[in-house]
């Protein structure tokens, strides 16, 4: 923990040796942690190109240690030679993939819509419902965050069966919306608080209605915050496993459930598991790298005053 923000430390250390040692330590630590973050991903991707022998002998470097093979991807029906043939596994995979896309996009969108509206109302107006004031209503929404999925899972299992929503994407979307709503409200409240009220006051004077001011003036300004909340919600929904495992069986199964159910009784097909895991994490890895700015914006909302 002795590493300090170096822009002022560096100037303090006079001797070039000390400076060099400092640099070496910092870059060493950075490289070490980067290795810890990247190696499992590297391992997964390379394993999807290994044959059984290469896996059990622990070969690591393609073309040096072992000859890459499309085996894992072929078993998914996604290798170059099998992509044009019919493959039930591939169909299954795409079905699960679409389920994941639809549920996470659907839930995030729904949460953004109702969450932004609520956050806007809570930052701009004063409500009172019985003895509940704004702070209580905000607390009510945010307190949903501590509700563990396991508390809702069993009642929902029973309720969904009665309502006919078990194993449907709508059912998952509703639950995921509930799961990310507190986070969306948290982020959006922070966003709306940073927009000056004078803008809407001017809009109202110019004859816009309350909702007109919201849609025409406030929303365009708050859009980056909405994108941030949306991306964060997407990540959480895409990776959700607990509800999906309990509430879906055949139709609405999502990617994480498919990945988890592969570890069958007769040993593990390492290569196809690796290919599947790679395909499951690839979309989010791409989103994470491309939209990292928004993710960070979402995660740090309200943390620093």
């Amino acid at each position, binding site marked *: *923990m002795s*590493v*300090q*923000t*170096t*822009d*002022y*430390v560096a100037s303090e250390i006079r001797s070039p040796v000390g400076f060099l040692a400092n640099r070496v330590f*910092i870059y060493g630590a950075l490289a070490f942690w*980067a290795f810890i973050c*990247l190696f*499992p*991903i590297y*391992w997964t991707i390379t*394993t999807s190109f290994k044959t059984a022998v290469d896996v059990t002998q622990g070969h690591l470097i393609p073309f040096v240690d072992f000859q890459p093979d499309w085996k894992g991807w072929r078993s998914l029906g996604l290798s170059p030679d099998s992509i044009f043939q019919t493959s039930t596994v591939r169909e299954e995979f795409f079905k699960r993939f679409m389920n994941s896309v639809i549920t996470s996009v659907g839930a995030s969108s729904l949460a953004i819509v*109702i969450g932004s*509206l*609520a956050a806007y109302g809570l930052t*701009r*107006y*004063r*409500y*009172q419902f019985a003895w509940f004031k704004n702070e209580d209503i905000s607390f009510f*929404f945010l307190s*949903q965050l*501590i509700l*563990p*999925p*396991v*508390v*809702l*899972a069993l*009642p929902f*299992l029973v*309720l969904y069966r*009665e*309502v*006919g929503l078990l194993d449907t994407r709508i059912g998952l979307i*509703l639950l995921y919306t*509930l799961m990310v*709503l507190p986070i969306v*409200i948290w982020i959006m409240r922070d966003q709306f608080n940073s927009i000056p009220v004078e803008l*809407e006051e001017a809009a*109202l004077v110019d004859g816009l209605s309350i909702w007109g001011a919201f849609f025409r003036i406030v929303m365009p300004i708050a859009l980056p915050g909405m994108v941030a909340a949306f991306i964060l919600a997407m*990540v959480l929904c895409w*990776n959700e*496993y607990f509800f999906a*495992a309990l509430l879906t069986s055949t139709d609405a199964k999502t*990617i994480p459930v498919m990945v*988890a159910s592969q570890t069958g009784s007769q040993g593990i097909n390492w290569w196809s*598991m*690796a290919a599947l895991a790679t395909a499951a*994490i690839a979309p*989010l890895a791409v*989103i994470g790298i491309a939209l990292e700015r928004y*993710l*960070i914006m979402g*995660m740090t909302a309200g*943390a*620093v005053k």
Partner: protein
Amino acid sequence: MADQTTNAWPANAGPADLISPGRKQLGFAVMAVATLGLLAVIALQILYKSEVTTLGFDTWRPIVYAYILWGVALAVGQVLTRGEDGQRALFLLPALLFTIAMVIFPTLFGFYIALTDWNLSSFAGRKFNGLDNFWQMLADPYYRNALFNMVLYVLAVLVEYVIAFGLALLLNAQIRARKFFRVVFLLPLMLSPVAVSWMIGKSLMEYRFGPAATLARHLGWDNPAFFSNPITARISIMVLDAWTFIPFMMIMLLAGLQAMSRDVLEAARVDGATTWQTFWQVTFPLMLPVSVTAVILRIIFKLKLADIIITVTSGGPGGATDSVSSFIYREYRDRSNVGYGTMLAMAYLVLIVVFVTWLLKFANRFVRNVN
């Protein structure tokens, strides 16, 4: 639902007197009809399900539609009766109705299920059995073990915090390729815990050929079985979970570091403080509020820990790694024991509500005392 919007802003609105009595009456009529309609549909369905009448629906789904329609009618009624105030209420209404329907009702229902003897795989169906589940829970050594594990898992957050703080300091130092390192460090958070459990837990830490096991052998650990002994298995689960979630705290702490004013650090340096002193006497106290937020949020997420345990160890060896969530999950999955499982979940809910409330109070006082 008579939420009164007191008219705080803007000051020039005084719409109450602009609404004609006819419009007001229409609004009340809409809300009344909708409420009666909803109640009637529910009553009808209850009668049908208890086989008093033959008229009704096969599933309860129409009740959901009726609730949505009732919500729409309520919104229309608000606008009709209260004009602009009603329009303001519309911002809050969807989220409120949604959350109430999705949380309050299932939780209450859950408390009821918790008091029943209900096994989905038996023909007997649901039977009210009072507090039997509760007494069974108190005597259940596995549940106690799972609760104890949660304490250990939560304590592991402190170690994660130290690492996350170190990483945040590294990223805040003057380095090249800062954006590259930030993206790389953030990456684990994006990956699905299930895929991570497979990648690391099942494959990388595999006893025979996993690179982690090979490395451990090279370092002199003869028998690197990460998941066979209770203590190492717990530590392995903590490591897996830490790997995914350290970036979360790291990003929050980094934001805190970047928001810190340079002048204070500059002043400390001018006063002749060493790096070590500056950290403990300036940086760390200033970072305390952010740290507390990050740690509390992380603990809240930690209390939900389940995915990794379910996929990697399924609670093994012998329930040693079980979190409460994964234990209840198996109680349902393997034994279809809905009644007992729900009792466990509800007891857990009460425990963590008490714990988190205490934690928030304690953290508040802690931050105030130090500053």
